[in-house]
């Protein structure tokens, strides 16, 4: 059972994440001037839902904070507080804290300090809502407030908590305000309940008899039924109620429990709950309009109609709320999925399906290889292949999610950066509904963070500098995503100063990344930003400039089988583009042959292939070789040596050298031949074998044979003890 609840709670946190995205988009739109009712309602609903779920799962701090946030949103929604930039700014801050509270509830972060944000919200509520008194939230003491926020207070605080709940007339006599059930039950008389449903009590699905039964169920019994109002049969309207019940209930029963039975009774019904003191005194009291005016014998209110209420006035503050951390009984194990338009599926099931479809694709290509075109037609293979492709596309789309999940943290980050740097930044986002594999989305968070930080720190100028060159004081960062064939392009562009190539070059020389006399194109200079250890920040700032930024971007993106492109126009800005695969399950590969075996090189890492002239590959030492390429010397590795085939491989001039890109720079891999370029379905090796350095996985080729997929980064990394996690990049 607790598994089941954990599962539901996990879904709740997913909803929180979605809600936070919605709220943030709405608040950003509001900050941008769009204060339409729909936008405001969307933000309200998102925060409201978070509050509701948080309450259900017993996250008191999250509930309390979202409640206070919601109060302000409610006023804004109702038009009582104008969504001025000041008010929106307060809400954006509150949003940030709300995000932190969500994280804290997950247990992934400490509880945020929210006092300042709460004070700001209260301030808005107090001053912004001219027509509304500040009292409901601002004036109360913290403890009472907590009760106001749905009673997440200790059970012992019941009495205190009841008072602030005068918000609704209580239709029952709270003669006994003491919630601790009678210290000496034997001395206390039982309860007498008089219940006169209104004529319309049967409307809208109401059924007074069920209420009577519920009281009986609690141990009460019917003492009297007054049928005097019952008309003759021909005048009787079966949809009206005519009876008046008098019930008794055990003295030990808390009054609130009895009152609760009458929660749904129609508002103009009469409900009186009194201690049946001396049995003789059957003059029952009617309910005055509040708990405060309770137990004065002889104080009878003859017209209690307005005082009675049906909609559970006294539920909220009770200690039951504390127990609401949903502890259903554990006797029924069945967890049921909600019947809805969507269905949530365990990711492993989806991956298994994807895997099987991969097999199907492979079988298909095996058949295509083995059958002659005529035979293929005869068995209708092309149709099968088409269906298989469609299934594959569909299954892959199941794992696809809108990239806006990855974008959702950006606005907040920009706000923080803006505060840290004093730069003014506007964000424009497009294409956030572009769908990408979940695995890709999860892995581009870090690169995206670095790219945005880099853009703010190094790209966007200070407001004064911008003004000086005639630009608007606010810089703009454009974040976009689009799909082109099987690739996703994620761009971060700024309208800042652009890359200062002279400085980048000088820095690279200083850091020993390039020789002083290297001849580099503009593009090559731009790429230096991604070189390990490169940083041009004049002072190491908090944000980027730690020299781990852009090379992390590059290595992360490459681990995903993607690449990073940089383009920059001095004075006008820089664009970073991450070009990512749509899925991690399929790899664009180059099939190469070596010693009779076939291997797959990820195409994203391949720069070019070279058929060496005699003498172009030459030994540097006993174990290392280099290839001379357009005046540069690149290290060459013989794949056969790397895999320990030993012996003498082919002569270089009978081989091919594939130049690959790695963190260590360009490296040549010597193979026998290139056989093919094709998309391969990646099969993980890790489940079956120890991680093998240099291998990222395996695939089955069209003829049914197995080819190993090479992990270039691990292969060419010079240190033998380098960590092996880079293997995962391919096999994920």
């Amino acid at each position: 059972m607790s598994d089941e609840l954990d599962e539901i709670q996990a879904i709740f946190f997913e909803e929180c994440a979605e809600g936070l995205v919605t709220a943030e988009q709405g608040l950003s739109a509001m900050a941008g001037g769009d204060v339409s009712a729909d936008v405001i309602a969307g933000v309200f609903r998102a925060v409201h839902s978070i509050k509701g779920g948080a309450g259900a799962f017993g996250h008191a701090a999250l509930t309390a904070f979202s409640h206070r946030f919601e109060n302000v949103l409610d006023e804004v929604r109702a038009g009582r507080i104008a969504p001025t930039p000041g008010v929106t700014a307060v809400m954006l801050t509150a949003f940030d804290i709300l995000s932190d509270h969500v994280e804290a509830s997950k247990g992934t972060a400490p509880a945020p300090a929210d006092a300042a944000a709460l004070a700001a919200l209260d301030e808005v509520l107090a001053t912004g809502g001219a027509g509304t008194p500040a009292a409901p939230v601002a004036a109360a003491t913290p403890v009472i407030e907590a009760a106001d926020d749905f009673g997440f207070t200790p059970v012992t605080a019941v009495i205190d908590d009841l008072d602030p709940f005068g918000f609704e007339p209580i239709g029952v006599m709270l003669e006994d305000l003491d919630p601790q059930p009678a210290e000496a039950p034997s001395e206390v008389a039982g309860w007498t309940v008089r219940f006169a449903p209104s004529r319309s009590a049967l409307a809208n699905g109401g059924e007074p008899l069920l209420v009577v039964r519920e009281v009986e169920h609690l141990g009460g019994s019917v003492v009297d039924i007054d049928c005097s109002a019952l008309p003759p049969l021909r005048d009787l309207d079966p949809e009206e109620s005519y009876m008046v019940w008098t019930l008794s209930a055990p003295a030990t029963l808390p009054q609130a429990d009895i009152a609760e039975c009458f929660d749904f009774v129609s508002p103009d019904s009469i409900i009186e709950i009194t201690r049946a003191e001396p049995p003789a005194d059957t003059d029952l009291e009617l309910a005055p309009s509040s708990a405060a005016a309770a137990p004065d014998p002889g104080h009878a209110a003859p017209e209690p109609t307005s005082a009675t209420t049906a909609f559970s006035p006294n539920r909220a503050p009770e200690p039951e709320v504390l127990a609401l951390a949903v502890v259903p009984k554990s006797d029924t194990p069945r967890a049921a999925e909600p019947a809805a338009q969507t269905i949530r599926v365990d990711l492993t099931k989806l991956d298994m399906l994807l895997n099987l479809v991969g097999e199907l694709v492979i079988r298909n290509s095996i058949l295509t290889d083995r059958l002659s075109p005529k035979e293929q037609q005869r068995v209708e293979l092309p149709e099968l292949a088409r269906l298989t492709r469609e299934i594959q596309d569909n299954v892959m789309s199941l794992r696809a999610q809108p990239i806006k999940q990855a974008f959702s943290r950006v606005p907040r980050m920009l706000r923080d950066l803006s505060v840290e740097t004093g730069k003014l930044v506007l964000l424009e986002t497009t294409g956030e509904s572009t769908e990408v594999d979940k695995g890709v989305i999860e892995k581009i968070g870090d690169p995206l963070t670095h790219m945005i930080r880099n853009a703010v720190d190094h790209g966007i100028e200070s407001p004064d500098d911008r003004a000086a060159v005639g630009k608007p004081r606010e810089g703009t960062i454009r974040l976009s995503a689009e799909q082109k064939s099987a690739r996703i392009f994620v761009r971060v562009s700024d309208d800042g100063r652009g890359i200062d190539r002279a400085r980048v070059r000088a820095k690279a020389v200083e850091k020993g990344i390039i020789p002083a006399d290297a001849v580099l194109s503009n593009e090559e200079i731009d790429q230096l930003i991604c070189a390990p250890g490169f940083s041009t920040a004049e002072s190491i700032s908090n944000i980027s400039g730690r020299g781990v930024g852009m090379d992390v971007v590059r290595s992360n993106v490459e681990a995903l089988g993607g690449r990073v492109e940089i383009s920059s126009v001095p004075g006008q800005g820089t664009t970073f583009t991450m070009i990512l695969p749509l899925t991690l399950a399929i790899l664009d590969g180059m099939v190469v042959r070596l010693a009779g075996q076939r291997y797959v090189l990820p195409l994203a890492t391949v720069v070019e292939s070279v058929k060496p002239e005699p003498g172009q590959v030459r030994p540097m030492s006993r174990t290392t070789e280099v290839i001379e390429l357009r005046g540069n010397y690149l290290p060459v590795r013989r794949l056969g040596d790397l895999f320990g085939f030993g012996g003498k491989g082919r002569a270089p001039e009978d081989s091919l050298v594939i130049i690959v890109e790695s963190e260590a720079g360009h490296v040549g891999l010597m193979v026998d031949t290139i056989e093919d370029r094709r998309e391969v379905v990646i099969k993980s090796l890790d489940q079956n074998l120890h991680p093998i350095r240099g291998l990222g996985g395996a695939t089955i080729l069209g003829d049914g044979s197995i080819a190993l997929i090479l992990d270039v980064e691990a292969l060419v990394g010079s240190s033998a003890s380098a960590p092996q996690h880079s293997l995962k990049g391919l096999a994920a």
Partner: protein
Amino acid sequence: MSKLILTVDDSASMRMLLKTSLSQQGFRIEGATDGVHGLERMHEVNPDLLITDINMPRMDGFELIEAVRALPQFRGTPILVLSTEFSDDKKARARSAGATGWITKPFEATKLGAAVRRVCP
């Protein structure tokens, strides 16, 4: 045959929570994601009880209740509102729209069951 309840809430976790709590207490549960979906599902499942949230996209709980009550076959079907809101005017609005009762979120499973049995034995 156990009673059939349609729960309408845009939050999947809330629907699951309701389903878990109430199916343990012998109810059969169907779900819908907002007012529009809820109205469709009313016709499909013809429940013994409707439990609806208030704040939902497309069609909110008030509109749903009015729409359901306008249909003769659901005139007597009990409808409970399950909402974190608890203001008088909201409750009054729900009542005039045709709601049978109001339960404030968060709820405790046993209390919820009692409230449900109060209108749907």
